[in-house]
């Protein structure tokens, strides 16, 4: 049973001016620009449409707005971002998710909303996404294993969705749970983690405008191995906070239990903010290996890790007065 999802508030549903001005971007992302060029339908004055690095095909998504939140740093090539993943539900090797996720069915999908909110229940993904303009955000992604990528995500602020369910004053945290489908997720047979995968955010972190609920990347729908059909991206936190294939969202009063924190509480904290000053007990977090760019890339990949992954200006105030060594 799926219920109808609370409507998108008018302030969100009207077309922002930026969308109108970016219509060329929208066309480009739709792949229409390239098609028009190929058929000679554009005037000579039109700026050349860059040939996309990744082939356009079914599942291409329209975008209302594009923001580079990675300071113009070189993007990770699409094949790398989709073939080098940590998604233990499909195996623990980096290429396992790409290899083992083909049986996973991201449609039909429903999302359960539970806990301290005025509206709860199970909602079809289509209703969750209806009337929700998608934006492209280019974020740095820093893995706790000390490698990083730069990825153009497609999604919308998580806050937009959470507000529609009207969390009550008792809602202090948001807990997320990944789908639990042993028949489609072979990695679940191995009790590497206490399945299903769980993650959580403090409500103010969840409501922060940088926190993104993602349905696509590189202009198209999320591949299974990257967390289809719906995943979380919190760019100032280590990658494991970005829970994939979300099946359930619950508003809680207590700090939720999270998969990696349960597995190794001394190594993976609830907050997991990117912090070069607080090392993982077994390895340094001062620097990271950046997986980006193309060509011969054996040397010079190591860069300095930024506090909050370079988003300190936007998010450091959330943790004012907190001992980040204690709340790592």
């Amino acid at each position, binding site marked *: 049973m799926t219920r109808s999802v609370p409507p998108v508030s008018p302030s969100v549903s009207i077309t922002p001016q930026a969308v109108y001005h970016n219509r060329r971007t929208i066309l480009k992302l739709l792949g229409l620009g390239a098609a028009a060029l190929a058929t000679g339908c554009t005037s000579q004055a039109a700026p050349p449409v860059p040939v996309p690095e990744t082939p356009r095909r079914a599942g291409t998504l329209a975008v209302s707005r594009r923001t580079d939140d990675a300071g113009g740093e070189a993007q990770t090539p699409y094949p790398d971002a989709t073939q080098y993943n940590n998604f233990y539900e499909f195996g623990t090797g980096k290429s396992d998710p790409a290899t083992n996720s083909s049986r996973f069915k991201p449609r039909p999908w429903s999302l359960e909303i539970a806990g301290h909110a005025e509206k709860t229940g199970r909602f079809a993904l289509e209703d969750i996404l209806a009337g929700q303009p998608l934006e492209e955000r280019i974020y740095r992604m820093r893995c706790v*294993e000390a490698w990083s990528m730069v990825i153009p995500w497609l999604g919308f602020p998580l806050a937009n969705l959470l507000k529609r369910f009207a969390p009550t004053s008792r809602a202090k945290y948001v807990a997320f749970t990944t789908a639990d489908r042993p028949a489609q997720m072979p990695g679940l047979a191995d009790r590497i983690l206490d399945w299903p995968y769980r993650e959580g955010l403090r409500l103010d972190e969840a409501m922060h405008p940088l926190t993104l609920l993602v349905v696509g990347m590189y202009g198209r729908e999320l591949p299974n191995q990257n967390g289809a059909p719906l995943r979380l991206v919190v760019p100032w936190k280590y990658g494991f906070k970005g829970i994939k294939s979300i099946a359930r969202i619950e508003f809680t009063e207590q700090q939720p239990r999270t998969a990696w924190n349960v597995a190794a509480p001394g190594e993976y904290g609830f907050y997991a903010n990117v912090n070069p000053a607080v090392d993982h007990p077994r390895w340094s977090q001062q620097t990271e290996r950046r997986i980006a760019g193309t060509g011969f890339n*054996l040397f010079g990949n190591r860069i300095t890790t930024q506090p909050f992954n370079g988003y300190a200006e936007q998010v450091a105030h959330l943790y004012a007065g907190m001992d980040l060594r204690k709340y790592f």
Partner: protein
Amino acid sequence: MIFRDRIAATKPLVFILCLLPLAHLTWSALHGSLGPDPVAQLEHRSGDWALRLLLATLAITPLRRFSGWHPAIRFRRMLGLFAFVYACLHLTIYVVIDLGGFWSQLFGEIAKRPYITLGFAAWLLLVPLAATSTQRMMRRLGRHWQRLHRLAYLAALFGVLHYVWLVKADHREPALYLGIWSALMLARWPRRARYARGSGAAMAPVRN
């Protein structure tokens, strides 16, 4: 016939076999076929081969004991030296390519990270073994040679623990290496006790 015997004739083949992983690694690196994080691949694969060859070296004694094929001893030094070659390669890749430009981090890493400390210790233990692997050193050290070269057990253990410790959650593969190391140790244990009771003559280094 240019070779003394069949074992001597097989040695060049084993030599080439031991070089194959290095050749494959080099070829893959130059052709960009190491995947999205080539540096991690170089580290992991060179480390894997150092461990495998070190365990293969330690497998020679049990192999002789259980199969009775004693000439196996004549491959031991080559295997051990190749283990050292891959360990050197592994360390070089980490220091030069991975930490490239951030060498100030190196000493902190060796001192603070238990798994790096252990890995580095394993490599250090192999250095005197490689240095004393020549015929001349064997003769010069006499019965001390055998005692010194028992450090290989410790080096292998450190190497395996180095692997166990760096893994995030899936410990199956490093556990397999630890299992093999334990089995190789157990396989020589009773023999050692018997030797301890008897004369030390059987412990003299074998010339190959």
